């Protein structure tokens, strides 16, 4: 992989920057993978903290992938791409949060004794 010689004056530095970007992304993603797997494997946190740690690591890793692998860099990005990400995020929030909210609430109403949608809240024939 020799960088494109001639032509662009900054060809080499851009090559180096992009190579480093992928290496950074890979390194950070490995770290953010090892951390939650290790926490679950050796169960060092109480349950609530564990879920929180897994969620935070996932969110940060998704951002790392967007930044270093998909090259989404807000100040430099085409504004249409960013609008689409925001719009998709909004739709996902409405659909996912709305689905969970409505169906959990429904399960509670069907079976007041159950906090969540348990198999035991179904009629015997569906178990």
């Amino acid at each position: 992989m020799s960088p494109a010689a001639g032509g662009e004056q900054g060809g080499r530095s851009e090559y180096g920057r992009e190579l480093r970007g992928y290496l950074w992304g890979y390194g950070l993603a490995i770290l953010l993978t090892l951390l939650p797997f290790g926490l679950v494997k050796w169960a060092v946190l109480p349950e609530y903290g564990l879920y929180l740690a897994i969620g935070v690591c996932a969110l940060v890793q998704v951002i790392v992938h967007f930044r270093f692998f998909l090259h989404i860099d807000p100040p430099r990005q085409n504004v249409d791409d960013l609008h689409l990400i925001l719009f998709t995020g909004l739709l996902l929030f409405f659909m996912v949060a709305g689905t969970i909210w409505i169906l959990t609430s429904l399960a509670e109403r069907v079976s007041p004794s159950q906090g969540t949608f348990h198999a035991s809240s179904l009629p015997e024939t569906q178990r």
Partner: protein
Amino acid sequence: MSAAAPLRYPGINLGSAHPETEEKSGELLFGFWVFLMSDAIIFGVLFATYAIMLHARAGGPGPQKLYDIKSAFMETLALLSSSFTYGMASVALKHGKRQRALIGWLFATLCLGGLFLRLEVGDFLSMFQQGAGPDRSGYLSAFFALVPLHGLHVTSGMIWMCALIGQIRRYGVDREVKLGLLRLGLFWHFLDIVWVVIFSFIYLGGLA
């Protein structure tokens, strides 16, 4: 090319070293980005379905019994590394002079994608052997709607990659091949992001 050059489209920008792609790349990659975002909605809604079906076990086995943390970890490493090797292929496409580096990195990506699928199919088979197929409970229906759909995406990405390698061999790295590689790159990195959410919320969340 200064560090602050604007990005015309998602993914690595080939820039002025590849003038033949400049004209079409903006609209093609934006269109593909629209497709990926709609695909993200499909996965998101399947995640929501999984979340509400998680306790609908119908007396069947649950995540603690069915998931294997070691296997999920190996799959994660394989897919993450394949995302990195595809990134190296993109760098070779943009800055490399020779085809061999590009084809080499694409082959590495194919092998890692194949390893991922091989491990994932192994997981599914072991679940079937325990009588935990999609017909066992609502929870397992939701699982088998979501996780194999991602595997199917990876499979189609690999078929696409084979087709592009064939085109490189036949026609060289021409404009169409470059634009195809840019789009496949977005697809491949997007699938890795979906997998991050799968391993975090389904595998680790289920085993925690």
